[in-house]
């Protein structure tokens, strides 16, 4: 799309969407958001990129094949579920580590649940881009 305005706008928007999507993902456990919403938002950024600058540039910016991202996401989500096995728990049992937890504060939570959500993010992100890029290229 040879629109200067769109291209320039995309430069800002794509980055913004990507950052915003991480934010949406990370806060998802406590506020509206989460892996899906994050992944969808992040993908939107690159969809915009593809529309504005073409899939060639968008793929170059992404560096990795989107379907590879998606399948890695699936693998990560699965690993997050399998992680519980190390502790003798059932599949997909959340494992939590609270860094600097005190009596009344839970500190900074790290959890397999978050890893799972990251997996979800990657899957949604990668999958949508797989479809959109391929469509753009075939049509």
């Amino acid at each position, binding site marked *: 799309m040879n629109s200067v305005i769109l291209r320039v706008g995309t430069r800002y928007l794509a980055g913004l969407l990507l950052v915003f999507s991480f934010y949406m993902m990370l806060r998802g456990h406590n506020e509206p958001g989460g892996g899906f919403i994050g992944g969808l938002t992040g993908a939107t950024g690159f969809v915009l990129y593809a529309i504005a600058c073409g899939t060639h540039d968008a793929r170059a910016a992404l560096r990795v094949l989107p379907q590879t991202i998606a399948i890695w996401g699936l*693998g990560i989500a699965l690993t997050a579920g399998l992680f519980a096995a190390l502790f003798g728990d059932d599949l997909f049992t959340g494992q939590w580590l609270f860094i600097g937890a005190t009596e009344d504060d839970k500190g900074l939570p790290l959890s397999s649940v978050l890893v799972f959500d990251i997996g979800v993010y990657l899957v949604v992100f990668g999958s949508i881009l797989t479809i959109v890029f391929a469509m753009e290229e075939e049509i």
Partner: protein
Amino acid sequence: MSWVLALPLVIPFLTAVLAFLTRQSPLGRWISVVGSAVLLAASIVLMNVVLRDGVIAGQMGGWSAPFGITLVADLLSAVMVVITAIVALAVSIYAIADVDEGMERLGYHALFNMLIAGVVGAFITGDLFNLYVWFEVMLIASFGLLVLGGRPEQIDGGVKYVALNLVSTIMFLTGIGLLYGMTGTLNMADLASAVDNADQRILTLVAVLFMIAFGVKAAVFPLFFWLPASYHTPAFAVSAVFAGLLTKVGVYALLRIFTLIFDHDTAFTHTILLWVAGLTMVVGVLGAAAQSDMRKILSFHIVSQIGYMIMGLALLTPLAIVGAVFYLVHHIVVKANLFLIAGVAQRIAGGTKLSRIGGLYKSAPLLAVLFVVPAFSLAGFPPLSGFWAKFLLVKAALDVQGWIIAGIALVVGLLTIYSMTKIWAQAFWEPHPDGIEPKLSNLSSRNRAAMLVPISGLAALTVIIGVMPEPFVRFAEASAAQLLDPTPYIEAVLGVQP
């Protein structure tokens, strides 16, 4: 305990991920084979645990039922998982010969293993919405596999397949919503008792909705159109696994929920099922009689045979359920195998259209033997597996004075013989129209092994079930007992209620 349940689900997913990452190299196909073998091992472990301990349940995420998602395996689930693994292994070996590199690079092995994962998930989940999710995994993977290769007739078949299956999916989802709205729960064991408090009239309506949704999946009359429209179009490895497994998931789901949840008005629901069964058998078999392509004949026979299984469910006597379970297992092995054989026929004789091929009996006697076993088993000849399946169902029908349905079952059996011998006469006996000799040695030795090993294995299984039916019948009996009295199932999921 829960990992015994979780592993059969996890393994194909892991396999799919690994196979996809290695899709550009031949490693992918070996990962698929090894993954299927490991799945088989895991499913046998599962089966052993179930045989030893009875129904087992695992609470995923560690959340107790009915709050989290429960995986459950009773005998039926366990055997379905085992048989799925067997078919998966057979087909992934066969795929070495049948699936070309182009398809592999597009992710055939990943899609295939995801399909298997979906099938396994559907068999072992104890949660209705989770069942929906696995149905979708299976469905979307089947979409991909069906059109992989992109030949025009695949696309055509795909359109019909996709359109009709989507309708079913939506019905299923709607049904879940409604059932949740009535009972407030999704856990199937929990639903079994929760539905007692609901308005039974609405429950019957919802039951019919589920019957239709699963009816499409199971390909019963008058909802089966997608099957004959599409099953003859994809790669043989694909249509074999479809033929073997996909419709059976629908049958399994019907068996499960119409024994566990919707057993409040069997006089109504199961009478409908009986009609459906009879019509499915007849319409399917006549459809087959009208075809002249090997895979189309086989496709219509899937429909027809589904009728038998539904008949077992509809009669709802212990023996009938035994028959349904036995039929289910038998049919998966036999039908998958017939499609695999059709693939070999296509390779060496140049097609599946009966008028365009021939001479296989003379030139490829081994293939002829391998065909006769599943074909005559399907037709119900003793002492092959299909005979016992049919015998059990006909006996069950006669035991309850179901003269008409028994008669239908027998006549349809006869017409099945007709179709199978049509294939036999035209593809095997009749000389090849082009005068060529379709020899197995025309295949490369690698392809020959990859194709004939799984076919022989499945044929052997057919013969084993036929000649030594006792363990299988006993198993089906135990399994039917669990279905008809779901108390152990419910207790395994929810814990023993005071």
